[in-house]
């Protein structure tokens, strides 16, 4: 039971969890002693209160800070996507200057730094990675320099935001657990035979759906998630063919949802 309470407490901001978690667990167990129904109700109430606490804290920040936080989060997700894709290609045995070990290591370092909480350093490493791969990227798509530039604009803007407006977070190496995500993505999309486990593909799809719901669901919806989801979609959508149009449209919907909530009063 206390394990379930600990899981529900994850909805709270970490400092509140640290300060009040043990006490809230004790009180909840006392209140719901002998009644499973009451325990379930209390548990749901606790998770809801935790999400509200997070939402209130976000709403108390300035709009500019919320947007910057969303863009920084988008930078981390873009790095995750890029690292997963490039590693998966490497695992499949592809050889390409874009898959050079040095570049992959640089991107991995940037992702690790942003996860731990060193946003400025991570942004600088990611910008160095972008600059180092740019000639190979241009050579990879001959004659479409404009398309390459367009596809690079959003990630570069995100990395620059990391450098100029880093999030205020205490460094925490436990966040490296997020590296499991690219590992799972590599396993999902990487086998040489292109055989993807339906379970893993399902898990990835469910996780993506969960993020969308968290970004859009009122009242606890977080504009930062909407912004963070929109920017990778926009990056994927900027391409010469028409396949990207739905992605760009989805990104615009998310950006407008994020902007509406960032304006503050209605969202709060």
């Amino acid at each position, binding site marked *: 039971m206390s394990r379930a309470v600990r899981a529900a407490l994850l909805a709270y901001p970490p400092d*509140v969890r640290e300060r*009040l978690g043990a006490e*809230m667990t*004790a*009180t909840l167990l006392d*209140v719901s002693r002998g009644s499973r129904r009451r325990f379930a109700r*209390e548990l749901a*109430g*606790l998770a809801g209160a935790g999400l509200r*606490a997070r939402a209130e804290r976000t709403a108390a920040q300035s709009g500019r800070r919320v947007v910057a936080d969303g863009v920084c989060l988008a930078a981390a997700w873009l790095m995750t996507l890029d690292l997963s894709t490039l590693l998966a290609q490497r695992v499949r045995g592809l050889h390409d200057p874009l898959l050079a070990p040095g570049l992959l290591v640089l991107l991995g370092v940037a992702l690790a730094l942003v996860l731990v909480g060193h946003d400025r350093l991570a942004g600088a490493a990611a910008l160095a990675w972008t600059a180092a791969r740019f000639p190979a990227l241009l050579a990879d798509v001959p004659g479409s320099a404009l398309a390459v530039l367009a596809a690079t604009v959003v990630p570069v803007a995100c990395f620059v935001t990391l450098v100029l407006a880093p999030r205020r977070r205490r460094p925490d190496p436990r966040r490296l657990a997020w590296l499991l995500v690219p590992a799972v993505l590599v396993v999902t999309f990487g086998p040489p035979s292109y055989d993807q486990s339906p379970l893993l593909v399902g898990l990835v799809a469910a996780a993506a759906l969960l993020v969308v719901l968290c970004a859009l669901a009122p009242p606890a919806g977080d504009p930062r998630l909407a912004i963070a989801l929109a920017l990778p979609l926009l990056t994927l959508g900027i391409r010469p063919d028409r396949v990207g149009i739905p992605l760009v449209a989805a990104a615009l919907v998310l950006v407008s949802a994020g902007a509406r909530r960032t304006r503050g009063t209605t969202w709060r």
Partner: protein
Amino acid sequence: MPSYIALATLLDGPAHGYAIMRRAEALSGVRPSTGTLYALLDRAIAEGLVVAGEPYVEGGRERRDYALTPAGRSELAAETRRLERAARTVARKLRATTVPA
């Protein structure tokens, strides 16, 4: 109103979370949920209405006693006066209006 009741329970002296919930139930007939109670306490502490004591362990469970500050007592008194005024107005209106049979 839950915030008023939670503060009012501390007039009987400092209490930990579970004791506050039981006092609230005895006072108003409604027991706040754990999440609601701690959100109220957190806000009351930030506003200087309540102070939290040092954590201690009782029966293997971590507790902390909460106590009303002088500012919390004043706020409670002001809120009580507001509620009394509102109750008097409502009572007057109830007497003045008739319910069609």
